[in-house]
């Protein structure tokens, strides 16, 4: 009986001490956790702004991660400002904010609907480097970091040749409006790459092209219009993740899965899911993290007066159901 009592006392004492210690640990970590990571307390040398469209796609998240990594490696901090075209605070307005805040450099991801030319020129006039990512402004900016549009078009063309060949009747969904000269320049390069690849299938032809507005729903609208107007269309080439999702949804709704080959863009989870199901034949994936990283490195180099390349190609990867299965959890 005595031994049982002593054992119970020891057990309850251990439980009490253990629970108390664990509770104090939780409390301390909860309190210290509010202070944020230690790096947040350290001042850095450079302060950059990244002006990007408001989006939380895989490409956007990868881009931010790459920028953060590069900032940490470069004794810099990147402050991200997101905009929506047409809003009170659009991309140009944020560029103005960055200039008033006396930033050390701006990473700009241009989007249709906003004219950044003046803002970029104003920054350059103040000696502030501007690096564009995702889409190029061609002129004004310090350098462009991203995918080679010609290479992207060429890869799409190769897939079409291999899968469809001369029978290919191709419809293009081009993201954003193309009235702006800079955008046209990008699309031209994409089309040039595509055409170059299609030389191996002389019968293949681009039969239609549609412009999609920004917004998750507009990709489906454009695809539906393309297919409706072109019954013989058997290939759709997309130039954004949202367009890919919309096109795939349209083909499923029209019960034409397999009959229409979709060449997607980016590696959003929904896109990869369609690739895995075979709805999307292949998707062209940009290396977002590398793009973000190289953008910061380029702007740091420019800030320090070092020579910076006009175009930094971060490459493109073709993801098909075959190589998707080999990747961990289906992501790249």
């Amino acid at each position, binding site marked *: 009986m005595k031994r049982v009592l002593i054992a119970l006392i020891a057990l309850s004492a251990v439980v009490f001490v253990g629970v108390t210690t664990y509770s104090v640990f939780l409390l301390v970590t*909860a309190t210290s956790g*509010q202070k944020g990571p230690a790096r947040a307390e350290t001042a850095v040398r450079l302060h950059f702004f990244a002006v990007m469209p408001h989006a939380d796609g895989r490409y956007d998240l990868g881009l931010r991660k790459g920028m953060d990594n590069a900032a940490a490696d470069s004794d810099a901090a990147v402050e991200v400002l997101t905009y929506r075209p047409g809003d009170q605070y659009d991309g140009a307005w944020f560029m103005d904010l960055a200039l008033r805040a006396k930033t050390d450099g701006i990473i700009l991801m241009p989007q249709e609907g906003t004219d950044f030319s003046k803002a970029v020129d104003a920054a350059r006039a103040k000696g502030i480097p501007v690096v564009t990512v995702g889409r190029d402004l061609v002129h004004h900016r310090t350098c462009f970091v991203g995918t080679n549009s010609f290479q992207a078009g060429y890869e799409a063309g190769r897939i079409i040749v291999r899968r469809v060949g001369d029978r290919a009747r191709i419809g293009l969904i081009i993201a954003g409006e193309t009235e702006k000269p800079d955008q046209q320049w990008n699309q031209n390069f994409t089309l040039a790459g595509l055409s170059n690849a299609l030389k191996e299938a002389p019968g293949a032809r681009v039969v239609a092209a549609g412009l999609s507005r920004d917004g998750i729903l507009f990709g489906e609208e454009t695809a539906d219009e393309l297919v409706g107007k072109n019954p013989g269309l058997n290939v759709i080439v997309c130039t954004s993740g949202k367009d890919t999702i919309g096109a795939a949804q349209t083909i499923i709704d029209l019960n034409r899965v397999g009959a229409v080959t979709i060449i997607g863009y980016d590696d959003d989870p929904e896109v990869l899911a369609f690739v895995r199901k075979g709805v999307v034949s292949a998707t062209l994936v940009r290396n977002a993290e590398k793009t973000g990283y190289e953008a910061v490195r380029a702007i740091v180099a420019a800030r320090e007066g070092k020579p910076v390349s006009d175009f930094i190609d971060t490459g493109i990867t073709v993801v098909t159901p075959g190589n998707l299965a080999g990747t961990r959890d289906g992501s790249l």
Partner: protein
Amino acid sequence: MRMWPKTIRRKIVSYSLLIILIMSVITAYATFNARSMSRDVDELYRSTVASQAMQSDLEFTEKYLVEYLSTKTSDSLREFIKYENRFRADLAPLNRTAKPDETALLEKNLVVVGTGYLEEADAAISAKRGRNIPVYIAAYEESDKSAAVLRYLIGRISSVRFNQSLAAYEDFNARTEALIRLVTLMIASAVILTVLIVIVYSRRIADPIIRLAHAANEIARGNFDDRIAVRSADDEIATMAEAFITMQESIRRYVAELHEKAEVEKNLMEERFQMLHMKNLLKNAELDALQSQINPHFLFNTMNAAIQLAVVEDAERTRLFLEHLSAFLRFTMRPLSNTVTLGEELTALDSYIYLLKIRFPDRISFTIDRDEGTETVRIPSLILQPLVENSVLHGLSERESGGEVGITARRDDGRIRVDVSDNGSGMSADQVAELLRVRPERAEQTDHGAAADPMETAVREEQADVGRIHGIGLRNVIDRLRLFYGIEDCVRIQSRRNEGTVVSLYLPAFHKREEAS
């Protein structure tokens, strides 16, 4: 080194402190928890108030800037300066360096843009005072844009702070759920711990007291030998137990002394009883003797007359017979409590043997042999005659002739050994054992078994007569010797059927001067 406190007072204090400590830990923890939550709410409130104050000061700065630029009144300028300073004061505590933290960067932006705004506003006012209209308008437009950026930044920082505080608060709330479960577990384990401690502690105090109570009950039952198990702790209970053990030992010694005294008294009483018994035997013997002394003077005068008559008639044998008879009777008339010398006893025995030889002239021969110096040893009187009488009346009663009775007195290892032997019918071992058996009642009995023949009948009748006259037999002799000397092994009997009997008396050699002791 012992972990437990020694005294009960220290135990009570230490256990109470332990329980208080446990409860204090829980209370302190709960208080700190509540305090931490309160601090989060306070921080949220302060950041909100600071953002609102900044927003307000910026609006008033803009308002009085516009008012001054449009009206140019000193009141508006004073108010502008007032709110400009307040806005500058609002910016003062904010972070001014670039850090990889959203709030820090926002604060830095706020400071840079805010400082730029105030410079632009000051420039506009200066231009207004200098009536430089294009410049003040341009400066005002810039300040207006900067104010828009500032409003955005204030709203953003307020939102970020709010979200951060909210996230922290929600995170804390989520942790609090776990903490509440942990606190419940803490309280439960603390309650179990304290209850168990109280149980053990109360047992530690109560058990020795209960053992003491049991020990007291054992002592009350008369058991002084069980040692009280005292816990090795050096507390008040142990001290009390030690005192109790000392008391137990004292009582045990006292009771042992009482037992010893009682034993001594018991032995004394037994000795007294034996003395009384001996006196009783002597009184009985004396009474019997007195009863036989009907008129000794008459008897001895008559005996003397008979002796004189025998002398006158020249009857020599009759005279000798009467003289031996008279001498023997005189010896037997002595008080039995008196001692005699062995020589006196043997002289009286000579007279008795003479009488027997006259009565049984050819049947029995008697021999007496004694060592030199044995005649002065003092012995109880009349102890040999009954033995000779026993040999004649019982041992040799069946022999018509050839009967022999021998009496020898020898020195034997500091004692005197007197043997009375015969070659008569002897006794069985049972009879010998019965005679030598130590019995509380020492009633006189006949010593040999009854015989049916006429000779034996005559002997028994004579024995009965002798018993009535003297009341002394072998049994009586044994009892008297044992009582007289206080030892049991003073008489031995060797006897075989049809071969004879030897009765040996082992008498301490008390001489005349030692008799008194």
